């Protein structure tokens, strides 16, 4: 019976591959990606970084980040809010005071072998550099706040795996610091979003528009190209996302450990 099922599964997969190849080459079933850009994509390509016609431009050559934080900015703000509220719920459910737990495990030596620990030391530096680079250069190259933040959260994670959660806490990471930093990130987002409103523009305005009085954020400061609001938004989102994931990891690992011991 199992053999029959295996043969059936393999024939099914081979059929799927053949079917996909046929579909791709012959293009007979419905639509397939054509080498022609659709109207919406053409709009963004034409206007995102059009320095000659600035009516709809966003001051950044990275169209994806421009759509996320300028054209569709409110969507991203609401996503960030959902994540923020989810983390508050997680804290309420899983919070326990850290002081007692830390005292109990202070003398214990945890972790894997020396080879793993040395590798972890090298890799966390690389991860930190790459993720901060992703976030800060998100307005000119692929990446951005969410990608950078979630990549940064991997560094404490492999410290927990290679050493222990207590080593991570002795490195200076803590729940309260993470909470403060993520609130700073949220305050950055709010300030950048509200400043145009005070100057008689609309909320989350980035560049000059004909129907709003706000003249727009500067695209260049001195020799540095900053792309309007996008760099600040990316920094704020980086802080929020990375610190929220770190909070979850600290909470989960402490919770697991405490459950085993008690």
């Amino acid at each position, binding site marked *: 019976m199992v053999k029959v099922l295996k043969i059936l*599964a393999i024939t099914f*997969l081979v059929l*799927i*591959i053949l079917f*996909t*190849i046929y579909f*791709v*080459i012959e293009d007979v079933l419905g639509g*397939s*990606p*054509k*080498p022609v850009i659709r109207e919406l994509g053409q709009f963004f390509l034409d206007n995102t970084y059009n320095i000659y016609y600035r009516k709809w431009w966003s001051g950044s050559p990275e169209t*994806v*980040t421009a759509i996320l934080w300028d054209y569709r900015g409110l969507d991203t703000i609401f996503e960030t809010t959902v994540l923020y509220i989810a983390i508050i719920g997680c804290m309420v459910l899983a919070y326990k005071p850290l002081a007692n737990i830390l005292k109990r495990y202070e003398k214990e030596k945890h972790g894997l072998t020396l080879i793993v620990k040395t590798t972890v030391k090298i890799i966390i530096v690389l991860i930190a550099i790459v993720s901060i680079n*992703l976030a800060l250069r998100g307005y000119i190259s*692929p*990446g*951005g706040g*969410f*990608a950078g933040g*979630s*990549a940064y*959260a*991997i560094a404490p*994670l492999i410290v927990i*795996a290679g050493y222990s959660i207590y080593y991570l806490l002795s490195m200076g990471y803590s729940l309260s610091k993470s909470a403060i930093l993520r609130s700073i990130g949220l305050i950055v987002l709010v300030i950048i979003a509200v400043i145009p409103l005070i100057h008689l523009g609309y909320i989350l305005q980035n560049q000059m528009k004909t129907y709003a009085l706000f003249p727009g954020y500067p695209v260049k400061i001195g020799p540095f190209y900053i792309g309007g609001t996008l760099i600040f938004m990316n920094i704020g989102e980086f802080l929020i996302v990375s610190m929220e*994931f770190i909070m*979850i*990891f600290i909470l*989960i*690992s402490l919770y*697991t450990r405490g*459950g085993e011991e008690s």
Partner: protein
Amino acid sequence: MIIYPLLLTAYLFTIALVFTILAIKEKDLIKAVIYSAVQSIAYAIAFGVLLAPDILLVYLAVGLGIYPVIILYAISRTRRFEKHG
């Protein structure tokens, strides 16, 4: 030609399908998480082939780093092996 990237995408998505089925069938839950991570790799490369590097970066961090670890923590709170039911 647009055909060759699409063929590569079809291949990668088929691999993802295979590993999804393996992850569902597997009784050892830790192996199932690893199969699921392999499926994430296939999706991430497919996004790269489809010229979506932004999604690729997020998918690598979430699908290979954060998601398996959270599931592993969840498994460590219960049994490792799925019972025949």
